[in-house]
């Protein structure tokens, strides 16, 4: 693959940094008791959503998960409307009805986070059916975790997508745990991507902490899908920094393990290093991006806090289409 150009490289960094700051601010707001329900932080996994979604157009689709803020931002969402959703405001993406675990932005092809592990996988497959049915070159991406990979929905959807040659990417983010359950207790193989062979589609295992790698792998898979060659299974090895949910006591892993990933495999640190050593950006460029992102995040929080609380639910019209 040709080397990343300057603008693209810096944009990948900007989006990753936006996700990181969004999550930091979301955790803070949660601590201030301003967020309803629960939140699942995407911090540590930014390289996956950003490397993949960089190849998507606004008319391509994604389905996301309970840990969905990163996918949502990478697919082009406005952080103000996202914060507003977390805060249960009428100005949120779902008018405060969904909250963190259900943000959808259909105008950007985001068919929603999902409270059901593995629930989005068949939906992305159906969106890919729409793409071929209408003769377009649109593609769909389903993000799910290592936990989601053990749902029957993945088996059924991978097979259906393969026999119908649907333009869908199945992107498994192996962040090493499903809630408290480590992958070694949930898989008898180390390389989850081996499964792809059984469905007749390419399977790729990629280092999710280096956005250049996810970007490169997704480029091939998206091109394949757009040209009618069908689905790809991608397994990105990654790590979540926070507990499964805000307040998780994390008895299932050690502080050393977390520190090791943060110190040696942080997607933002890795990106900063190659951006500067490959002379794609100077320290000053990166500092400027960081400042711009911080300002955007603060503007987003202010927008959210100024929004009206969600209006009372109307029945049946909020539930049934007229």
């Amino acid at each position: 693959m040709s080397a990343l150009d300057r603008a693209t490289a810096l944009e990948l960094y900007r989006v990753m940094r936006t996700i990181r700051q969004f999550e930091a601010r979301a955790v803070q707001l949660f601590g201030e008791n301003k967020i309803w329900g629960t939140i699942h932080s995407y911090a540590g996994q930014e390289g996956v959503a950003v490397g993949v979604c960089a190849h998507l157009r606004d008319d391509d689709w994604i389905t996301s998960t309970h840990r969905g803020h990163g996918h949502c931002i990478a697919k082009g969402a406005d952080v103000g409307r996202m914060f507003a959703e977390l805060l249960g405001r009428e100005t949120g993406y779902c008018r405060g009805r969904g909250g963190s675990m259900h943000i959808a932005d259909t105008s950007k092809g985001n068919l929603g986070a999902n409270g059901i592990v593995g629930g989005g996988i068949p939906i992305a497959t159906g969106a890919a059916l729409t793409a071929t049915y209408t003769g377009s070159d649109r593609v769909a991406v389903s993000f799910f975790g290592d936990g989601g990979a053990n749902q029957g929905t993945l088996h059924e959807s991978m097979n259906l997508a393969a026999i119908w040659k649907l333009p869908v990417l199945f992107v498994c983010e192996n962040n090493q745990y499903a809630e408290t359950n480590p992958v070694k207790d949930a898989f008898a193989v180390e390389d989850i991507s081996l499964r792809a062979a059984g469905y007749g589609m390419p399977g790729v295992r990629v280092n999710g902490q280096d956005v250049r790698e996810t970007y490169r792998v997704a480029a091939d898979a998206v091109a394949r899908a757009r040209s009618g060659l069908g689905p790809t299974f991608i397994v990105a090895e990654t790590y979540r920094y926070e507990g499964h949910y805000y307040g998780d006591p994390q008895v299932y892993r050690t502080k050393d393990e977390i520190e090791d990933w943060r110190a040696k495999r942080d997607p933002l640190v890795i990106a900063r290093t190659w951006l500067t050593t490959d002379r794609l950006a100077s320290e000053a460029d990166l500092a400027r991006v960081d400042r711009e992102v911080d300002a955007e995040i603060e503007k987003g929080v202010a927008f959210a806090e100024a929004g009206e609380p969600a209006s009372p639910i109307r029945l049946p019209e909020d539930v049934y289409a007229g």
Partner: protein
Amino acid sequence: MSVQPAVRAEGEKPATREMFYAEALGDALRLEMRRDPNVLVFGEDIAQHGGAFGVTKGLLDEFGPKRIRNTPISEIGIVGAAVGAALTGLRPVVELMYVDFAGLAMDQVVNQAAQNRFMFGGQARVPMVLRTQGGSGRGNAAQHSKSLEAWFAHVAGLKLVMPATPADAKGLLASAIRDDNPVIFLEHKLLYRTKGDVPVGEHLLPLGTADVKRQGRDLTIVTWSREVVFALEAADNLAAEGIEAEVLDLRTLVPLDKETILASIRKTHRALVVHEAIKRAGYGAEIVSLIVEEAFDRAAKELAS
């Protein structure tokens, strides 16, 4: 919930043809597929074979493999694919061979199709139809004979249709396909080979209107699906004894046509609710509760309090 208008003016007699219930359903699918290129049908063995009960026979020849698709035996995969296709602009009709298999697909029905619109703050529409069949009487044993309408009726966000006659089957399926909500369309395995006059050409019946299948002054029998057949038989027998029973076919369980039920009971002052499903927590109990809440005479209420 909106109710689509019937196309024909009251009183005007449409041309009809005698059809089997299964044929009438196929007729609705064919006409809707001709009318709207975004309608497609998929399910197990529905293409060449025409489905386990012959409803989709002949559709492959007319519409080809892009629009009439066999699927692998993957209930949640195919129902979920219908949800995704519906969210992105198509109008899929997905067939489950038996309602007893719905358990395998239930998450996509209950948590996805039914809730997307509400949870996305109105951003989404899920215009899909899930057709399947239930009911006993064919010696298929317990895993292929249940009546599970109560499962679906309990879920906000779904509509639920259970036609009893060929004409109703056609008119309601056409409306279900045009509806912008997920519609569960429950057929009965022992109705497929029943015959009746069916309007030729476009025939739409609004979802949410019950039908008085027989007028009577002494008793209201509220029922749906195949039990309508038995209720009409029973009404004939009662008539021989001088009792005139009104037979009310709900046709659509969600939305429910409360007004027609209440109007009939206000006239007859007696109600009998009949369904094929297990009685405990069945949909019949919902009808009884409606009657108790809304159709008791004021005098009876005062006595009770």
